[in-house]
């Protein structure tokens, strides 16, 4: 969603045609008391928006948002949903598991970067490490082939995994939010590389180079999530939930303030928003998405080793995000799908010893002809059609 988009969305939501900029000014000048009321470190910053811009409008409840979203359902949404639900019967087990489930799990991790980058203006290279924190936690606390695993029930391991992912993501955010652009990238990359070496060289906790084997998805109510079909639907449910969560979040006062921070942090600070708190909270939420993706990915692979969180994978998440386009949450999943398809089938298209050339060439072409990835290609096409 571009800046113009969210302004429009914002205006539609509030039932006013007044440009946002004016409303900020109005909010600031009209009620300075509102700004003082705002809970300072909470990060949600509901004061300014809650007080001034949502007058006469129902609050942003999740269920209301859901109902409204249902009202906005279009034929193409239904078609996409049907296609996703029917996919396992269109393809075979291999396509369901290796292409479908893997793309959804990687897409979740990419979504965390798309959310941070597209709506918060922060490019973090540590998202795969955050996913790795969750994956390692599940392997260490849950059951695996290594002796040092504690063998807790899966739900406890997953809960702790997601919790640690959010904590570590908030920590990375807290470390890096005062920086901009290339420096954010460097700090998050440093965190990712440090975590890789920690996992590689620590034996008492991370089991070093060998990592954890046989970390399998659990069996719940007689359904074994190791099987391709149940696992695909588990990934699909998580991905849909995360997608809707992001779509909902960007319309809450927090999400809109976050986009304000992206576009002009100094003005937002001047308006009384705690820029740092908004950014750290965005990192925390992205950590939840990445952690969820990390848990699914460790179940998908059935193992986790330092190789799952090395520099190559840190960069791959960025590649998927750019490939799909960062202007809409959908881009994350599109990018992951194309990436997985290339990784799997490029070797059939070209000389088997040089198939990485295909992957590189496709990436280069997409970025060259559409700076906004596949989504950019799509919207460009649509513009040309409607012309």
């Amino acid at each position, binding site marked *: 969603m571009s800046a113009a988009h969210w302004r429009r969305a914002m205006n539609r939501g509030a039932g006013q045609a007044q440009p946002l900029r004016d409303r900020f000014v109005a909010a600031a000048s009209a009620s300075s008391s509102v700004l003082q009321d705002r809970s300072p470190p909470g990060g949600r910053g509901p004061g300014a928006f809650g007080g001034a811009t949502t007058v006469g409008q129902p609050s942003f409840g999740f269920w209301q948002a859901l109902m409204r979203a249902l009202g906005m359902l279009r034929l193409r949404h239904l078609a996409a949903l049907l296609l996703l639900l029917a996919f396992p019967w269109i393809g075979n087990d291999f396509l369901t598991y290796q292409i479908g489930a893997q793309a959804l799990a990687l897409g979740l991790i990419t979504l965390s970067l798309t959310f941070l980058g597209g709506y918060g203006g922060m490019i973090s290279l540590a998202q795969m490490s955050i996913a790795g924190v969750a994956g390692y936690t599940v392997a260490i606390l849950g059951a695996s082939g290594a002796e040092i695993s504690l063998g807790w029930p899966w739900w406890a391991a997953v809960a702790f995994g997601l919790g640690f992912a959010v904590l570590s993501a908030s920590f990375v955010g807290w470390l890096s939010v005062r920086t901009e652009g290339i420096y954010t990238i460097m700090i998050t990359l440093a965190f990712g590389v440090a975590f890789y070496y920690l996992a590689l060289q620590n034996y008492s906790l991370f089991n070093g180079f*060998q990592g954890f084997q046989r970390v399998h998805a659990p069996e719940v109510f007689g359904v074994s999530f190791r099987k391709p079909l149940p696992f695909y639907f588990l990934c699909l449910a998580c991905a849909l939930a995360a997608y809707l969560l992001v779509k909902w979040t960007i319309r809450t006062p927090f999400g809109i303030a976050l986009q304000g921070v992206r576009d002009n942090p100094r003005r937002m600070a001047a308006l009384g928003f705690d820029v740092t708190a908004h950014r750290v909270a965005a990192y925390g939420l992205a950590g939840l998405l990445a952690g969820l993706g990390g848990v699914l990915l460790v179940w998908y692979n059935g193992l986790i080793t330092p190789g799952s969180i090395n520099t190559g994978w840190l960069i791959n998440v960025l590649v998927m995000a750019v490939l799909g386009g960062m202007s809409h949450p959908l881009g994350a999943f599109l990018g992951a799908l194309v990436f997985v398809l290339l990784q799997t089938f490029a070797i059939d298209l070209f000389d088997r010893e040089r198939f990485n050339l295909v992957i590189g060439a496709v990436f280069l072409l997409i970025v060259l002809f559409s700076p906004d990835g596949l989504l950019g290609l799509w919207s460009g096409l649509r513009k040309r059609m409607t012309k």
Partner: protein
Amino acid sequence: MKTDKPRFVRTVVSGAVALLLAGAAYAQGQAVKIGLLATLEGPFAAGGADGMRGAELAVKQRGGTVAGRKVEIIKASSNANPDVAVNAARKLVEQDKVDILVGPLSGSEGIAVKDYSRGQPQTTFINGGSGAQATTLVNPSPNFFRFNTEGAQWMVGLGKAAISKGYKRVMVIAEDYAFPYSQVQGFMSEFCRLGGKVPIKAWVPLGGKDYASTIARIPKDVDALLVVLGGADAVNFLNQYEAAGGDKPILGGSITVSQDVLNYKGKRRESLVGTLSAGPLADAFDGADWKAFVEDYRKNYPVSAGGYPSPSLFAFVYYTNMKAALDGLEAAGGDLSNNHQKYRAALSKLELKTPTGIVRLDANRQAIGTTFVTEVVKDASGNLLNKVHSKVDGVEQLLGMKKEEFQIGSRDVPACP
């Protein structure tokens, strides 16, 4: 769009025809599909490419057919990470529907692919180059076979050779992961049994650059150092050990005394003469089968075409495993019916003729084979090369121990301070 329509129709029609033809060929039961998985990316890319050469050589020697059926090879690549290896194996097995999979190359990949093989009873898995002990010792899979010996077996004979040189106390300096653990175990289990002592083991990180603290820990009273470091790490260690004035004789692991080390130009070059190491092959071995194998490799993959002057370890193990896959097919008459029942029985009983001698399988479908102890010597023109010191046949995975007393090598196992 309109102009594209005929082309689209043509594509669909030709695609359908191709599918039909492929289906017909499959129905006749002609070709045996063999998936070949090695690392064509990442740190072992060069080794993986040579492994592929070795496997292809075994197919070429049979003229591309076995038991009247054509052999079709489908290659896949990984980057030495187990998750990537399993993804590549899954594509070969479930999408390309190979009958037999040969691979992967490195240790942790092997364990992961073995775990995956348990859920795919319709496919027979034969190892490529991976040498982790746990692959066949812990939770072995009934359809995973390994015709190469592994890290611990490769060091058998070195302990005895060290004792005969008069080394009683040896310090271990090795990288901190599974392969060196198994190498150290292979050496120590024999060395300790013959009365040797290992007072200190120094585990250093893989790819480490600074060995000063390790060198400072070397006690005065040890007779020799067992150095299990790979390629660049070994050269770095030698340089720093020389700079620190060290003069202890060195025992090497299977990948330590490589050509990089033999080309070493430092002052201690002379002291490398007499260095013992052990491994599954020796360039200077003068067995007739080995010489024929090297000759064949050189003819098919001359240095000008990217081959090595002599087949590498990976070419040798991939050749061995692919040869086993084909010899087994020959013995079973190409019969892969009934979930490969006849084929697997043939593989289990196979007396495989390899360039270094006969290989048989144990109850866990792990190879029992030959190990060479080699010694560095100087030839007339002053070049250093590895000469065969002794040859040990019939080396078993449990290193002569009973099943109950055997433990997989780790940082603390075995110990004899």
